[in-house]
C-alpha cells in the first residue's frame, strides 16, 4: 500500500463521471429530435438563399384564407374534443382514484387497452359501427326508429366521436395521476366539518383535482391538433385538419418547404398553448406538482384571475348542490336508523362504466366483420369465411409489411431500452440541478405533435440519405419510444429498495456485478414491460413511417392507411383483428409483468 493508492480514496470521486448515464439519451435526442426540430424552426424564419430573418413564410400562410380556416377548424375541433375528453373522463378518473384496488386495476386496464390499440384499428371499428350500413344504423332501422340510414360519419359528429374515443384515455390517465395524490381524508374532514357531498366535492376535491384536469386537457389538446387519421377517415371536406394539409403538401404536392412552414405553424401553436398553460398554472403541474397559486407565491395575473373566478364558481356550484340536496331530503327524508342508499355513488358508477364501455367495446366490432363472406363491410356480416385472412397471408405486400413492422418494432424498442434505461436510473437515483427540465426534454417527443417530428426527421434524413431505410425508421421510432421506456423504468425503480444495492456493494460486489446480480433480476419484469410498451409504440406508428419511408418501403400501419384511403375493406378488418389480438396480448402481458414488478 502506497501513498498513491491511499490518495485515490482521499478525495471525492470525480463528479462528471456520474452524468455518463445521461449521455446516450442526450446525444440521441439531440441529434434525432432537438437538432432536426430546431432546424425546421430555423428554416421557417429565414429567407431561402440570403439567410436573412423573415416572417414571409408565415405571412404567406396567413394570407391564404384556406390555411387560416384549416387552422381555425383544427383549433375548434381540438377544443371540442378536449372538452368531451375531460368531461367524459373526469368521472372515470374520479372513480379510479377513489375505488378499491381490485376494481381500480381492472378498470384501469379497460382504459389502457384502447389507449394502446392502434388508432387505425379503432377508427375502422367506428366505420363498422357508424357507417351507412353500420351496426347502429341497422339497429335503428330494425327497431323502426329511423327509416333511412343516418349520416353518422363523414361529418363533425363522426370526427368528434372518433377523436374523443382516441384521446380520452390520455385525459383519464393524466387526471388519475393527480387525483391519486389527493388525501382521501380531505373530503371526509370536510363532511365532519359540516359539508354535504356537493360542497365537499366542489370546494375541496374539485379544486385540488384541477391541475390534473388542466394537464389532461393540455395533453389532449396538443395531441388533438396533430391528428389526421380520424378526421381523414371519419370526417368530410369541412373537417380537414392542419396535419392533413402538411401531409398533402409534402406527400402529394412535393412542396416540402411550404409543408415545413405549415408544420412550424403547428409547432408554434402548440408552444403558444404550452406558454399559456405555464402562465396560468405553471409547468410543474404537468408533472403532478401543485399550481403556483397553491405554493404560496402570488402567481401571475392570469393565475390569480383563474383562482378568483374558480373560487367564485366552485362556491356557487357547491351552494347550488347544497340547496338541491336539501330539497331532495325534504321530499325523501333520510332516517338515522336505516342505512342510506348511496345514490350519488351509484350515479357515478353508472356514468363511469358507460364511459368505459364507450372506450372498450366499439373496437371489438371489427372482429366479426373480418369473417364476412362479402366483399364489403356491412352489418350484420354474412358468416363465415376465412377468405380475408387468406388474402392477407397470400399477399406479398402485407407479409412484407408485417415482417418489416415486427423487425422495426423489435429493433427500435431495443435501441430505446439501451438509451432510456441508463437515463431512467440516473433520473430516479441521482440529484442534479434542472432535473425537471431534463425530464421535460426527454418526454417532449411525446408531447410535441408527432407530425412535426416526422417532417423534421424527413428533412434531416434527406440530407443523410436515410429516407426509405429501415435504419431511418428504427431510429425515428426509437425517438418516440425512449420517453415511454424512461417513464416505465423510473416507475419501477421508484418501488425498488436501493438498500439492496447498498447491501450488495457492502458485501463486496462492484457496481456492474451489483447491477447484474441484484438490480436487473429484481426489476426484470419492469424492464420487459418497458420493452413491450416501446415495441407497441413502434408497431402502431404511422406518422413517422409515412414520411420516413418515402413511399419506398411500407410498414403495417402505413399499408393499412394506404388501403383505407381507397376503401375500408374486409381485408383491413382481418388485418385489424390480427393486430388487435396481438397488441391486446402484448399489453396484457406487459400489464401483468408491471403489476408483478410493482407489488413485489
Amino acid at each position, binding site marked *: 500500500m502506497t501513498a498513491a493508492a491511499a490518495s485515490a480514496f482521499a478525495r471525492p470521486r470525480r463528479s462528471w463521471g456520474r452524468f455518463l448515464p445521461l449521455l446516450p439519451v442526450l446525444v440521441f435526442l439531440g441529434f434525432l429530435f432537438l437538432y432536426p426540430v430546431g432546424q425546421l424552426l430555423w428554416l421557417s424564419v429565414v429567407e431561402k438563399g440570403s439567410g436573412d430573418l423573415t416572417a414571409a413564410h408565415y405571412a404567406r400562410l396567413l394570407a391564404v384564407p384556406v390555411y387560416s380556416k384549416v387552422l381555425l377548424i383544427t383549433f375548434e375541433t381540438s377544443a371540442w374534443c378536449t372538452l368531451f375528453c375531460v368531461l367524459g373522463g373526469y368521472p372515470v378518473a374520479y372513480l379510479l382514484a377513489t375505488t378499491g384496488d381490485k376494481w381500480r386495476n381492472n378498470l384501469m386496464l379497460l382504459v389502457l387497452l384502447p389507449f394502446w390499440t392502434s388508432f387505425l384499428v379503432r377508427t375502422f371499428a367506428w366505420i363498422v359501427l357508424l357507417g351507412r350500413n353500420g351496426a347502429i344504423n341497422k339497429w335503428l332501422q330494425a327497431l323502426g326508429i329511423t327509416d333511412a340510414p343516418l349520416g353518422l360519419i363523414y361529418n363533425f359528429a363522426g370526427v368528434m366521436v372518433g377523436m374523443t374515443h382516441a384521446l380520452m384515455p390520455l385525459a383519464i390517465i393524466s387526471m388519475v395521476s393527480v387525483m391519486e395524490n389527493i388525501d382521501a*381524508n380531505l373530503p371526509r374532514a370536510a363532511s365532519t366539518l359540516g359539508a354535504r357531498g356537493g360542497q365537499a366535492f366542489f370546494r375541496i376535491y374539485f379544486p385540488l383535482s384541477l391541475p390534473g384536469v388542466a394537464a389532461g386537457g393540455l395533453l389532449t389538446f396538443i395531441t388533438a391538433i396533430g391528428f389526421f387519421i380520424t378526421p381523414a377517415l371519419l370526417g368530410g371536406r369541412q373537417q380537414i385538419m392542419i396535419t392533413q394539409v402538411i401531409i398533402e403538401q409534402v406527400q402529394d404536392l412535393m412542396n416540402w418547404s411550404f409543408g415545413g412552414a405549415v408544420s412550424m405553424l403547428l409547432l408554434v401553436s402548440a408552444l403558444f398553448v404550452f406558454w399559456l398553460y405555464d402562465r396560468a398554472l405553471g409547468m410543474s403541474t404537468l408533472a403532478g406538482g401543485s399550481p403556483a397559486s397553491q405554493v*404560496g407565491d402570488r402567481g401571475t395575473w392570469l393565475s390569480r384571475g383563474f383562482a378568483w373566478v374558480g373560487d367564485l364558481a366552485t362556491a356557487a356550484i357547491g351552494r347550488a348542490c347544497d340547496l338541491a340536496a336539501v330539497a331532495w331530503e325534504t321530499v325523501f327524508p333520510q332516517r*338515522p336508523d336505516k342505512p342510506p342508499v348511496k345514490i350519488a355513488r351509484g350515479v357515478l358508477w353508472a356514468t363511469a362504466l358507460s364511459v368505459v364501455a364507450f372506450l372498450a367495446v366499439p373496437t371489438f366490432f371489427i372482429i366479426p366483420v373480418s369473417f364476412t363472406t362479402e366483399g364489403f363491410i356491412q352489418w350484420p356480416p354474412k358468416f363465415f369465411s376465412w377468405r380475408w385472412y387468406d388474402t392477407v397471408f397470400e399477399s406479398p405486400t402485407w407479409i412484407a409489411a408485417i415482417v418489416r413492422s415486427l423487425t422495426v418494432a423489435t429493433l427500435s424498442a431495443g435501441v430505446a431500452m439501451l438509451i432510456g434505461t441508463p437515463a431512467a436510473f440516473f433520473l430516479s437515483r441521482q440529484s442534479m440541478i434542472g432535473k425537471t427540465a431534463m425530464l421535460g426534454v426527454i418526454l417532449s417527443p411525446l408531447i410535441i405533435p408527432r407530425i412535426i417530428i416526422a417532417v423534421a426527421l424527413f428533412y434531416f434524413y434527406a440530407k443523410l440519405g436515410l429516407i426509405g431505410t429501415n435504419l431511418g425508421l428504427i431510429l425515428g421510432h426509437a425517438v418516440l419510444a425512449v420517453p415511454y421506456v424512461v417513464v416505465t423504468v423510473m416507475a419501477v425503480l421508484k418501488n425498488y429498495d436501493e438498500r439492496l444495492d447498498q447491501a450488495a456493494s457492502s458485501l463486496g460486489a462492484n457496481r456492474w456485478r451489483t447491477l447484474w446480480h441484484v438490480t436487473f433480476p429484481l426489476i426484470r419484469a419492469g424492464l420487459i414491460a418497458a420493452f413491450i410498451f416501446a415495441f407497441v409504440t413502434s408497431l402502431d406508428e404511422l406518422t413517422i413511417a409515412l414520411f420516413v419511408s418515402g413511399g419506398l418501403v411500407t410498414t403495417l400501419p402505413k399499408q393499412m392507411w394506404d388501403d383505407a384511403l381507397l376503401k375500408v375493406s374486409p381485408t383491413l378488418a382481418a388485418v385489424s383483428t390480427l393486430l388487435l389480438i396481438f397488441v391486446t396480448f402484448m399489453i396484457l402481458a406487459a400489464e401483468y409483468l408491471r403489476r408483478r414488478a410493482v407489488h413485489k
Partner: protein
Amino acid sequence: MTEKHKLTVRSLRKTYGPVVALTDASLDLEEGEFLTLLGPSGSGKTTMLMIIAGLIQPDSGEVSIDGKLATYAPPFKRDIGMVFQNYALFPHMTVRENIAFPLRMRRVPDARIADEVKRVLDIVRLPQVADRLPRQLSGGQQQRIALARCMVYRPSIILMDEPLGALDKKLRDEMQLEIKNLHTELGITVLYVTHDQEEAMIMSDRICLMNDARIEQLGTPADLYFKPRSVFAASFLGESNLIDVTVAGTEGGRTAMRTADGTTLRAPLAAVPAGAAAKMMVRPERLHVLGPTDRADNVIEGALDQVIMVGGVTKYYVKLKGDRTVSATQLTQGPVGGIERGAKVRLGWAADSTVVLPT
C-alpha cells in the same frame, strides 16, 4: 331513558367479508369527559371512531349523540368534530379559510366568522399564521390548527384519531399536555384514539381498552392499572409479572393459589373456582427484595439474573425455578452493588397488590 349522555354506543358490529372489525361494542360518554380508545392496531378502535363520526356505517347497533339517534346520519348532521392523524387541513386554503370552512358551511355571517377565527387562533396561541398555507406550518402548528378548526363551531364531541402519531417524541409530550389543558379549560368532550398506553394514561379520564375487535375493559386509568380483568389488559398497560398458578381455595378471606413448585401465594378474594388454572399478576414496583429476616404475605425465591439502573429506578431481574423471570423495580438508593449475579434472593409483596386473572 336514563340520564342524557353526550354519546351512547350500543352493540355496534362491523364486518368486512369474513373479517370482524368490531363487535359487541357499547359505551357511554359524559359531558366534559376525555375518553380514550386504546388498543393495538386492528383492535377495532379506529373502526369504532369512524362509525361514531359517520364515515363508516355499522352492520348493526346504535349510536346516539346528545340523545338523538344518529346511527346512519351523515357526518355533516352529527355535530361532531374530528381531528385526523395527518390533520387533513385543506392544502389549497389558508389557515383562516380552513378554520372558517365549518362556519361557512353553517352560513355564519362573515363578521362573526372573523371574530370566531381570531378567538380560536388565540386559544391555540397561533394568531400570527392566519394567512399562511398549511404546508408553510410545522407539524405541531398544523396539529393546533386542525384542533382550532374543530373547536371553532363548538361541536358536541371532538373525535381525535391518533392526532399525535406523526409528531416526534418531544413535541408529542408537549401537545399531550396542551390538549389536556384545552380539554380542562374549555370543558370539551373528547373521544380519543391511540395505541400508546402512556399517552392514554396521561390524558384520559377513562380508558376503553380494545382488543381483537372487542372492548376488553373500560374504566379509569387507575382501574385498568391496578385491577386489570384479563391477561391482555395487565400486559398492555404498564409492566407486569405473570405467574401460572392453580387456585387452591379460600383461606381467611383471601384466595390462595399454588405455583408449580408448591409455593402458596395469596390474593384478595377472587371469583375463581378452586382447582382452576389461573395467572397471578403483580406489578414490578410492588415487589421488594427481602432481607434475611423480612416477611411478606407472598414470598418467592430465585436467583438474581440482572440488575439494571435506569436513572431514578433500578430493575432487578430474578430467575425463578422453571426458567421464569420476574422483575422488581425499586427506587434507586445509591450506586448498585452488594448482590452478585446468581445470588439467591427472596422477593416479597402484599396480598393486596396481587391480582388473579382467568387464563
